[in-house]
């Protein structure tokens, strides 16, 4: 079996031992869309905060929910490094004939599959239950952005999980990241009318790049000039995180 396939198979077998965990990975973003989305839709009825191009708050939130799927799945998969450390298999894995990047890429395989399934479920829910119109012609691009986002976040959190020895420290980091990266981005609200320092932080946040790209591919909104920059930024971020996570694996001793 090829190295990446073997790592993918291992991860699949491991994650499927806990279906509940997989369910929550997919369910939480859908709950956000239905509960948070509908609540704010009602509250913001007639408001111009989200602009004229987007028909309602749930349509505004849907691309953010897809980004949330990628973020949550990646975070929970990288948590698996602590299970490997606890069982002692982590260091043994480093002696197997697999390069560090192959190991990391194999590990995102199952996460990517989950993210794509979660994203498609969110889209179907949005279209069928919330009557959101999306750009079906750009669906392949949406899938590419979901894959790139999952990889980016997984490599980022893997680097943290590999470097940290304690699971509680990892949980603290991910909780902080959850708040900062998701709420300092246009995932839940537009940032254009917020204070300058907040807008600057948001523009430097890779979550902003991912959400903006998803709004283009799903709703057809956004400026072409900044989108290319954001696309390049997201790819660069993914590659940089892969390099840093590989380096962390090389120094994992």
């Amino acid at each position, binding site marked *: 079996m090829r190295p990446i396939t073997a790592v993918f198979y291992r991860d699949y077998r491991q994650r499927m031992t*806990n279906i509940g965990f997989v369910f929550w990975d997919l369910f939480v973003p859908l709950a956000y869309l239905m509960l948070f989305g509908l609540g704010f839709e009602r509250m913001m009825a007639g408001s111009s905060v989200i602009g004229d191009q987007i028909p309602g708050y749930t349509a505004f939130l849907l691309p953010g929910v897809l980004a949330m799927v990628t973020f949550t799945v990646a975070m929970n998969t990288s948590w698996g490094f602590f299970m490997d450390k606890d069982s002692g298999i982590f260091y043994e894995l480093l002696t197997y004939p*697999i390069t560090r990047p192959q190991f990391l890429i194999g590990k995102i395989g199952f996460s990517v599959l989950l993210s794509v399934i979660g994203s498609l479920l969110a889209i179907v829910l949005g279209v069928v239950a919330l009557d959101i119109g999306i750009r079906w012609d750009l669906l392949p691009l949406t899938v590419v952005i979901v894959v790139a986002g999952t990889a980016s976040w997984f490599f980022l959190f893997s680097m943290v999980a590999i470097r940290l020895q304690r699971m509680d420290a990892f949980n603290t980091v991910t909780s902080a990241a959850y708040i900062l990266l998701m709420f300092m981005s246009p995932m839940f609200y537009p940032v254009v009318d917020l204070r300058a320092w907040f807008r600057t932080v948001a523009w430097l946040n890779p979550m902003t790049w991912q959400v903006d790209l998803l709004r283009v591919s799903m709703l057809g909104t956004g400026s072409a000039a900044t989108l290319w920059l954001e696309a390049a930024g997201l790819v660069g971020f993914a590659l940089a995180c892969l390099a840093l996570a590989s380096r962390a694996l090389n120094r994992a001793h």
Partner: protein
Amino acid sequence: MTHAIEIEDLRKTYRSKSGTPVLALDGVSFQVPQGRIYGLLGPNGAGKSTLVKIISTITPASSGRAAVRGFDVARQPLEARRQMAVVLQQAAAENLLTVRDNLLIYAYLHGMARSIAEKRMKAVAEEFELGGRLRDTVQELSIGTKRRIQVAKIFMLDAPIIILDEATTGMDPLMKRRVMDRLRAEARKGRTILLTTQVLSEAEELCETIMLINRGRTMASGTLLELRKRTAHTFRVSLSFAQTNGELIGRLEALKPLELQVNGSAAELLFHGEEASLLGKLADISRDTPILQFEVRGPTLEEIFVSLMRDSP
């Protein structure tokens, strides 16, 4: 000729949590020819596991060179990893998976095809008495069984080098014996085995060449015979009398043995010194209290180890 394992002037310095450098390996060199069982013996913290981690590409050396079958572990880590199957000191098993998945996934991760892995898995499971537990999840099993799975995994592969870091720790004696027999058989087939242990009898029984290591330095190395020559003036004497009493024990103690054990009518003494002089003194004792049985043996590995440890700086 390329050796299976070549270690040249290997040094490793760690930085402790307080920031002070700790020398874990201090210029260790050795070669292991193909098909040999080579033992690294030393107390806790001697540097054995650090050496294994460097050879198995987990950690880089600070300086020096390590190569397996000609592949430099620092420059060609992937090629080096393809040459070996490693059992680390820490118990390692996929706790959430079944025994079957543990064996199969290990083989897949080493590039084995599914059909071959299935056949091997059945054979290895039978050999290691895991056949009835294939569907059990590993986290439900005892530590000893987990260790058995960990060791069984390496026999799923044909990697030319097997590295075992205190691999038999926690195993029951019968399984330990089976693993040792299997390792001997693998060495006869040409596989090279490097093992670290603190169990001296295991090294004595299994290893053709032994390196004694302490505080990151090589203290001695060679075959058991060669190591015995290093402690040529240390020997063990077994004596048997009709009966022992306080006076006799006092006379034996006066010989200043390193160790004296009296058990009923038998006495065991460990000496360091000139054999001829001791035999003369024993002959004097025998005139008053006849010695019924008398045996002189070279030191065991444990005695060599203790003697070298005592002399090390």
